[in-house]
């Protein structure tokens, strides 16, 4: 039989250029295959530490981002009313001159009148530095509406958190428990890890109201009621403590369980640690029975004894912990109904955790020496690994829930030990090693220090002399003292209300605030277009930078068009959000593997240009000329402190090239490109675990420049800074909270993890609004800036509201039906679909599929604009008014994280409308519409 001739070895490409994807926060390495200078194919880079060759749907569809018709083409000046989308293309000279004419007077008189907030920013150490040099206190990125609860709880508790800071020990874990992860953070590494666990026969348990994605492949699923994860975790703690299934040795050596706490309610130090003259927390040495600083060589801290000092009894944290969590209020039977999980299942999970942790430890034959000088023959760990992300953190009790999870991990001895959770360099790093927030404004001069940081008590809050908030987002105030990532979701609302003050210019980057990135989307559109008695906009000026024609473009006065991800320089820096894995510190670059075919510029280069035109320190030479030609120049030559720059690889040392600390190297980017776009320094084997207490790790971290001297520390089961805020609320100290916040601070800023019901439960009548409503991004669009992608929108082009079986039946829904969904705040009308694998009181939909008509170069009849919808319309940035004239934000009271997932709704079957509601009029497209057909083949 004859077969046609087939060339099975066709040329694949003319050239492969290796760069970093970073269209989401995974930061995978990619091989971009080019034919005739055009992108022909994109695949994962096998050598890259993050993705090791694999690539997600979004990464493979990158080719449709680079050719997207929604790409902005040139700087734009608004010519119609705000929100119309009517623009005129202008030159870069005019655009930059306009921006300078707005910003220069502000810097000279009132720098705080510039609010500079970046959304999916991938260069926060740079944009923050720029804002600091400008002198405004008003800078943050999107962490406040994403997952600051997770970050802050992790840093304060153990000097690192999940995801960017830490990862499960995929090689040794035997039980993996996944809490509340939407199908996202951190996408490819979790998928790869799940594959590795499954190949080894390890078990996976998912705790999530929705059984999709990772939860769909979990061996066991706990379909928990949203907002009750903390209660479930504390019940596990209750059972494990009662059974003595905790790692006593680990707790005594590496945590503050033995640290003594003042127990005198009348003392101004009530609840604070007993410290020596050097300020070191004290413990009792079990060998001598005497007090000793926690880090004394040879010390064996006692967990059981208490100490009487100056008439005050001091008890170890372990006592307080046992007292609280052995209480029957945490028994499985007491929490089962609220969590929606049978008590027997909670006990069974606790038993499996106990069995895996203590009957099947992982022992690595590796010697290491701890910070007290003791040599350990092995590295022994508890092979129970946890991971969690937005699902548990985007609640008003999210900070304490994340804390509770860390408490559970630490009680098991399953952090930084084999089989548990491992930190990624430059983490671990305790909260005390981070900067504190800075907010002192001096016209014409830089801010007094970095904007964001970790407060240690009321003295560190960002308050002005009259006690009002120094920042427009009210970060680091009594409303939310530990708001380490700022509160981007409050910026527009506060600026519109003039609370705490009015601003002049709102400068945003890659943040779709008039659409899916805001709570109360309709309200935000009104705030952005609202005018005062003179007819002037209440928020006078808005500058926006984006690569695409997103919904936000229409609401700005001046558009600075950015490049797409393959057309630009970036650095994925150890100063910022690096690509490290537990076994290696890594950073990476993007470089222009193709040139833009439009009059667009990389935003960071534009920011440097603006900085030079404004004469900002660090961005100009002595003669006033620009210090950096562009962002690439900055990446190579900027030094944050001597020897430490944005990139750690291939710096200039005394004897040639070096890594970590070193002088700038003019050929640094070439070295990165030759190495596939990234750099990795491997953690030495004897430094790979027990990092916070491991001398070998500490010394290695100093050599890499992560810190200037070894900084061993204890895990903070009891977080003393929280107690300092409580003490203030109880009336101690000179810096006092307003009276209306005292009770809330006492309840929610508890130094030991605590569970309280999500705030919306206290406002929305659970009888009237019995249903929880959630969103998640699909894995194919996780964190993506481009759901208009021609290939991806064929996969996720519609987002029905998924309804569980009992509700589906009781409302008499059938396929094709629509529902009206109502919260305390608003109403939407949307298509529904049935899904059985759901918590019985939870509905959900894919986030950010719905589009405004006219945006993203899509047809106005696009399914995303006709059928798609946002839940954002149901969620307000404020809690309902209480008649006290105050604006209470819908956020976590510790960190200010937007409480997206507190949402309660009711649903009702309604006749199908013409399109999903609310519907907004189309906006004019500054880029026209996309083509009617694609046959995309760049080769011959």
């Amino acid at each position, binding site marked *: 039989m004859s077969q046609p001739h087939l060339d*099975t070895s066709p040329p694949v490409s003319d050239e492969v250029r290796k760069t970093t994807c970073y269209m989401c926060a995974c930061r995978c390495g990619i091989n971009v295959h080019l034919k005739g200078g055009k992108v022909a*194919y994109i695949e994962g880079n096998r050598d890259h530490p993050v993705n090791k060759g*694999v690539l997600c749907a979004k990464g493979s569809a990158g080719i449709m981002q680079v050719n997207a018709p929604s790409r902005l083409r040139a700087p734009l000046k608004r010519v119609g009313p705000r929100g119309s989308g009517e623009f005129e293309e202008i030159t870069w000279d005019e655009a930059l001159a306009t921006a300078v004419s707005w910003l220069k007077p502000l810097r000279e008189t009132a720098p705080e009148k510039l609010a500079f907030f970046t959304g999916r920013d991938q260069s926060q150490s740079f944009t923050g530095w720029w804002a600091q040099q400008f002198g405004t206190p008003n800078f943050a990125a999107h962490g406040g509406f994403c997952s600051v609860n997770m970050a802050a709880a992790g840093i304060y508790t153990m000097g690192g958190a999940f995801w960017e800071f830490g990862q499960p020990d995929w090689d040794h874990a035997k039980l993996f428990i996944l809490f509340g992860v939407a199908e996202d953070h951190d996408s490819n590494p979790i998928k790869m890890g799940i*594959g590795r666990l*499954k190949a080894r026969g390890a078990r996976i348990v998912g705790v999530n109201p929705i059984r999709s*994605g990772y939860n769909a492949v979990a061996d066991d699923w706990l379909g928990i009621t949203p907002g009750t994860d903390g209660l479930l975790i504390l019940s596990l703690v209750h059972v494990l403590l009662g059974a003595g299934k905790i790692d006593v040795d680990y707790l005594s050596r590496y945590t503050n369980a033995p640290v003594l706490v003042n127990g005198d309610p009348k003392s101004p130090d009530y609840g604070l640690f007993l410290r020596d003259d050097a300020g070191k927390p004290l413990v009792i040495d079990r060998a001598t029975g005497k007090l000793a600083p926690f880090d004394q060589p040879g010390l064996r801290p006692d967990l059981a004894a208490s100490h009487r000092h100056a008439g005050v009894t001091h008890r170890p944290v372990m006592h307080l912990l046992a007292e609280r969590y052995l209480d029957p209020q945490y028994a499985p039977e007491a929490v089962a109904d609220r969590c929606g999980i049978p008590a027997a299942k909670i006990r069974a999970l606790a038993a499996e955790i106990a069995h895996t942790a203590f009957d099947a430890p992982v022992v690595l034959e590796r010697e290491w020496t701890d910070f007290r000088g003791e040599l350990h023959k092995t590295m022994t760990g508890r092979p129970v690994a946890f991971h969690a992300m937005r699902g548990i953190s985007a609640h008003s009790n999210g900070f304490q829930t994340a804390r509770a999870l860390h408490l559970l991990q630490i009680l098991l001895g399953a952090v930084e030990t084999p089989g548990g959770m491992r930190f990624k360099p430059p983490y671990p790093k305790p909260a005390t090693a981070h900067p504190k927030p800075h907010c002192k404004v001096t016209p014409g001069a830089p801010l007094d220090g970095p904007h964001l940081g970790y407060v240690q008590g009321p003295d560190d809050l960002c308050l002005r002399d009259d006690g009002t908030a120094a920042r427009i987002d009210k970060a680091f105030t009594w409303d939310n003292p530990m708001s380490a990532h700022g509160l981007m979701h409050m910026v527009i609302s506060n600026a519109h209300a003039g609370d705490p003050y009015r601003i002049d210019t709102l400068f945003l980057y890659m943040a779709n605030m008039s659409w899916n990135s805001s709570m109360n989307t309709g309200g935000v559109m009104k705030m952005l277009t609202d005018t005062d008695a003179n007819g002037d906009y209440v928020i006078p000026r808005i500058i926006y930078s984006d690569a695409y024609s997103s919904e936000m473009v229409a609401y700005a006065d001046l558009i600075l068009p950015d490049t797409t991800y393959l057309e630009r320089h970036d650095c994925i820096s150890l100063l910022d959000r690096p690509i490290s894995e537990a076994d290696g510190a890594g950073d990476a670059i993007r470089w222009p593997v193709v040139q833009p075919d439009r009059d667009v510029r990389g935003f960071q280069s534009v920011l440097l240009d603006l900085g030079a035109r404004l004469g900002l320190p660090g961005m100009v030479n002595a003669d006033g000329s620009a210090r950096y030609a562009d962002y690439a120049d900055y990446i190579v030559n900027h030094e944050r402190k001597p020897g430490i720059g944005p990139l750690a690889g291939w710096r200039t040392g005394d004897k040639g090239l070096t890594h970590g600390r070193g002088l700038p190297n003019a050929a640094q980017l070439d070295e990165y490109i030759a190495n596939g776009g990234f750099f990795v320094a491997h953690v030495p084997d004897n430094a790979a675990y027990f990092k916070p207490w491991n001398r070998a790790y500490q010394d290695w971290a100093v050599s890499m420049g992560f810190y200037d001297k070894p900084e061993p520390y204890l895990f903070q089961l009891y977080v003393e800074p929280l107690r300092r805020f409580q003490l203030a609320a109880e009336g101690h100290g000179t810096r006092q909270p307003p009276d209306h916040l005292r009770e809330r601070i006492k309840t929610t800023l508890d130094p030991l993890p605590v569970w309280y019901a999500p705030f919306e439960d206290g406002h929305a009548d659970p009888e009237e609004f019995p249903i929880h409503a959630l969103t998640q991004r699909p894995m194919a669009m996780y964190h993506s800036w481009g759901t208009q992608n021609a290939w991806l929108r064929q996969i996720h082009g519609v987002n029905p509201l998924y309804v569980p079986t009992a509700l589906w039946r009781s409302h008499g829904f059938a396929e094709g039906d629509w529902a009206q969904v109502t919260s305390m705040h608003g109403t939407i009308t949307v298509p529904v679909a049935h899904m059985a694998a759901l918590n019985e009181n939870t509905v959900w939909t894919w986030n950010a599929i719905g589009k405004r008509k006219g945006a993203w170069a899509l047809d106005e009849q696009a399914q995303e604009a006709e059928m798609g919808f946002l839940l954002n319309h149901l969620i307000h940035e404020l809690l309902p008014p209480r008649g006290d004239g105050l604006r209470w934000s819908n956020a976590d009271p510790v960190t200010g994280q937007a409480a997206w997932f507190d949402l309660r709704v009711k649903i009702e079957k309604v006749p199908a409308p013409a399109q999903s509601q609310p519907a907004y009029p189309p906006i004019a497209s500054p880029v026209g519409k996309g083509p009617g057909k694609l046959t995309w083949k760049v080769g011959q």
Partner: protein
Amino acid sequence: MTSLPTHTQRKLGLVIDLDTCVGCHACVVSCKGWNTENYGAPLSDQDPYGAEPSGTFLNRVHSYEVQPTDGAAQLVHFPKSCLHCDNAPCVTVCPTGASYKRQEDGIVLVNEDACIGCGLCAWACPYGAREMDMAAKVMKKCTLCVDRIYNENLPEVDRVPACVRTCPSNARHFGDLADPGSAVSQLVAARGGMDLMPEQGTAPVNKYLPPRIKDRLDQSDQIDILAPFLAPVTDQPKGFLGWLDKALDRL
């Protein structure tokens, strides 16, 4: 009508692990990317920025809910592409010989030069694994990346189908299912790999590994086994401190 080879030297195909597939669609888009640029006409998209975009895909992931009689509902992600059947009805139905099964490795291909776009093969395929490209008017299907797996311009490690190379959770495996010693054959043997719709008599080469049994945590036998791990040391804080003291002594 076109005839099938009586025997193929090898049976190259995919083994897809339904216990591990998280439904991320990475394979779908990687396939779309490679095959748009490579074998034959590009995979086109109609109305890509319009009301209802639709395009040609050689591999799609479907999701099905399973509702056990007792226990929670489950969601199964089910990637599907051509299964390169031994008794491929799409080949025998082809009026021009455009559809054929390769003798050397069993891959089922469409010779686009001979394809008249009649669509009979798509009707004949019980799996719905073939798609007519609306721009080129030729039938498109999974080629098992025949232009990758032997491609000397690629590093040897990359000579696998694009979907296999990209799969983040390692749910896709490629190899020779005619060789009982191959890694894929061993995986099929160990995990009870299954044919899709065997009653159709198509003898598919691709195999599916079924999901493992789920939700055993609170089954009564498990609870009996696990209960001893939770024997309480005390139910009082005071008693707990006594236990703690002894536990520290034992260290």
